[in-house]
């Protein structure tokens, strides 16, 4: 049965327990035939990549727990001159330490940048999906330790949903993702005259080059968050409330955008 990882970015709190559990399992321990010991430091077969989003005070963190994507169409496999990188029956991709020469071509080929060179042993290394544990019916260590169930592992028939991270790589990964960050447009709305935050104001983002728009209401702190927008698009943001002059802005979602404190003037 094929295996699958499902990572939910919305659940990850960046605690890095998965990194430590991975090191605990692999530093100093050999699991033939799947892996040789990870070096004491410097390798992150599991890493947590922080993404800081927004501007003070509308800031959030997203964390991407990044490990080998165990691709069905793996660029690393194609790049290996020694056929040392293989796919198990369950789909986990592993670098055979007995066959690897440490040439580093796979490291260059991997678009996810999750392969490391072990200089001491002269081999390339990466996440094995804890194949040695999976064979015993156990979960990978990162999955076992995660206190937020942000990393789930199981039979592909049981683990539902998710999308590829960077589908444009066409690598057909077995690690699928939920909650991958999409840009937001945020801000807060204040009455120009009274300096009071205004709640319940409709804020709409209209995609200028595609159909569709999103509307949210400002919350009790006057904040609005237009979430889940597409990256690198142009949106017309419209802020309207009865009795106020409308506010318009054209915003490009190169990244998360914060409009700051938007002042609405009441109609005279």
């Amino acid at each position: 049965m094929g295996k699958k990882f499902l990572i939910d970015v919305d659940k990850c709190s960046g605690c890095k327990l998965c990194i430590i559990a991975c090191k605990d399992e692999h530093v100093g321990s050999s699991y033939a035939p799947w892996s040789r010991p990870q070096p004491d430091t410097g390798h992150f077969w599991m890493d947590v990549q922080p993404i800081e989003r927004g501007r003070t005070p509308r800031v959030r963190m997203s964390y991407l727990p990044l490990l080998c994507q165990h691709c069905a169409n793996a660029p690393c496999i194609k790049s290996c001159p020694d056929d040392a990188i293989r796919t198990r029956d369950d789909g986990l991709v592993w670098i055979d330490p007995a066959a690897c020469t440490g040439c580093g071509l796979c490291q260059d080929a991997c678009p996810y940048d999750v392969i490391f060179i072990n200089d001491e042993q002269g081999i390339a290394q990466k996440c094995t999906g804890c194949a040695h544990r999976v064979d015993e019916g156990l979960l990978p260590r990162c999955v076992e330790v995660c206190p937020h169930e942000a990393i789930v592992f199981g039979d592909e028939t049981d683990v539902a949903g998710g999308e590829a991270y960077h589908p444009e790589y066409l690598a057909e990964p077995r690690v699928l993702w939920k909650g991958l960050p999409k840009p937001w447009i945020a801000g807060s709305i204040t009455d120009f005259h009274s300096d009071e935050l205004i709640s319940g104001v409709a804020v709409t983002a209209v995609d200028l080059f595609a159909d569709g728009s999103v509307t949210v209401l400002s919350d009790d702190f006057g904040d609005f968050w237009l979430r889940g927008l597409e990256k690198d698009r142009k949106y017309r943001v419209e802020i309207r409330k009865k009795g106020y002059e409308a506010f318009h802005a054209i915003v490009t979602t190169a990244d998360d955008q914060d409009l700051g404190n938007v002042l609405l003037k009441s109609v005279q």
Partner: protein
Amino acid sequence: MSDQRKIVYVAHPASGLARSNFPLVCHVDDGKIVRSQPFFIPEDVRLYEIKTSRGVFTRPRKDVQMPLAYAWKRRVHSNRVKYPLLRNDWSPDNPNPGKRGTSGYSRISWDRALDIIVAQMKSIREKYGSMEPVLVQADGHGQSGYMQSLHFWGHYLFDRVNDRLGWGWWTQQVRNPDSWEGYYWGAKHVWGFESTLGEPQQDAVWDDVLEHTEMVIFSGNDPEATGLGMSGSIALEMVKWLKRAGIKIVAISPDLNYAAAVHADKWIPLKPNTDSALYLALVHVWLVEGLYDKEYVRTHTVGFEEFRKHVMGEDGSVAKTPAWAEAITGIPARTIKALAREWAGKKTSLSVYFGGPKIRGALSHMAARLEAYVLAMQGIGSPGRQFLRTGAPSFYKNSLAQVPRYPDVDKSGIAMNHMIEYAIGKGPKSPVFIPRTLATEAILLPSIEWRGTSAALAKTEDQFQKYRFPPSPDHPGIRMVWNENGSQPGSWGNGWKWLEALRSPQIEFVLGIHPWMENDIPFSDLILPAQTNFEHEDLIAVQRTDLLSMFYQDQAIEPVGESKSDYEIHRMIGQRLGLDEVFPPVDDWLKKAFEGTLASTKLGITWEEFKQKKSVIYDCPTWEEWLDIKKEFGLGAHDGGLHNFWSEAGGLDTPSGKIEFVSSRIAEQDADNLERPPLAKWMTHSEVQGSKKAKDYPLSVMSNHPRFRFHVQGDDIDWIREISKVRGPDGYLYEPCWIHPSDALPRGIANGDVIRIHNERGAVLVGAVVTERIIPSALGIEHGARMDLAMLEGKLIDRGGCINLIAPSLMEKYGPGEEIKVPEMNVSGFLVEAVKIDVAAIVAGTGLGYGSTVSGH
């Protein structure tokens, strides 16, 4: 499995005070710890369920500890003190005190080490007539287990030296309320709660919150850092309960801390140590708009009218308007108004945990009192309006636990080591003592005076008692230091001065007892090698999470070098002094403790059976049983927290039994104390922005408990360093410093730059993290980084980034010779400047502290 392989339960290394979390499950193979894994609660243990109209809440069977715990095995062989070490240029006749921290060590035998210690104790007695010149520091802030690696044996030993040998008292360093000081020194005077350290009791509080609460204020609370570290993953689970119950989370803190960054619905950043001004302005809005529980204030509180006048400026002071608070806090007035209306309009609880920036700075007692006022105006104790700890050690209760547990299990389910009374007691055992916050001054100044023992469970009136050190003018003061922590310079304030104190000519002997060569340990004359938790058997008394249980800790590996457990070290010293009988064999001691618990008395498990079985985890009551239990205490299904105070309008530990806006105790007994007047107010001082000093030092350091360390512990672990530090251009891993782009830009500071944080007390180096996660004009630097002293431009600095080295002394508010009226901690919210430096100018390995070489290893 081969014979060499075994699975051993090991106490969470950062346990402390003999109380633990669920253990690490360690796989040992051929004398080596191969892996450390989370504990899974067996299926046959009945978990609790909290049944509400918003769903049923329980905990997962998986229990996870902070990352540090699973990396702890890396410390077993790294940086260890392996043998007794004697400083090369120390001798009884010429201790060379000024060389402490610079000279090397030589290995000596245990015999010789014990001879030296006993000879030093005798010499103190002969010269000064008692043991009073010995400062014993132990208080539980190091790696800890139940008994073997417990940091109270120094006090126990000296207690016996007094009562058995008649050598007189010792100077007991009393642990101050180090992460809840504002509640202790302040809020107690408003609402009492003496037995729960000044914070409202947590009895069945979740039943109420999950049923009724609509919004929770996280006042600096960080379940993802301190909560996970102290209570394990239940702290994270409790945040998930809030989310699942649809409760809005608003985080108020200078930083967007780790929990707020992923869980909060709203972040309200404010300048460090300005919470008092925010609370006053909230009250102003409520008064103007009538948004508070007037009936409750009338029936449940006293002294409100004076407070009302103060807030409205009717007492001659300025009105505490949102605009007034904006200038102090940096929070826009419009946001203050919105918060005030939200708070009043929704059933709002306030959540804290140990630490947080509000509670660890100067005058935190004002902030905590004002917080109590604010909660009182919104009817604390009424449904949904509670004081909430996300993850409660079991002592934060009156009669019932936070979550459904049997009261008899709470009462006698797990063994309690009475040694903790040396740290959490009603008062110091020795009449000669100093609060930990004044350890440095007690050595360096001729005499100090203060009020309050600072003992955790001291009566509130104790805070008005005057104490002095030395106790009499002809007293020799401190001549010997017994350091069982190695944490003073990184966990308490004024750290540079502490290092100076250790090098004072008056100190004849410094004994360090510690597993690692770190922090102030290399300022000792003699260092005794203590063990890690992996190297000895012990009991694990699980009490800091939501379930109570006990585990037997087998010895996982052979001791490293000639290390001994803390208990064994003190037993050997005691033996030299003829005190064998007060140090019984470990197994006898543990057996006795176990036999006093329900596991033995009710479940009939013998000690030998327990050692085979390895664990006892108590079942929780069913929801129906829990409801019956609650009935006995007058609580309905979704009553909890301060429900009984709400329904009875009395019964608090205050003179009036009610919430006191104007403290009658302070008014009667401490009226001349300008620092802590009967009515709490906003008070400016020298460490707040806008003071004269702020012209030179315009930035405020906000210092939280670390996410990846436990206080000062574990900062040398390579795995922890590589996930938590900032790699400088020289490759060195610097302690992170959060700085807002608006402060970084004018200083030419970019991400990854090495910056010097300095004030008049000295300087430390940190690595810049330019971030939107901190309010402008503040810096975020976690406490407890491992000291690594170096020279920069001819001055001694700390390259390790141990920020407490430059935190203020309590004396600074008053000046030497004057009485300290509130011996509070001041380790967050103090002024500094940040300057980018050229790493090429750092001269590493300059000697002090880390130049110490060890021969004979």
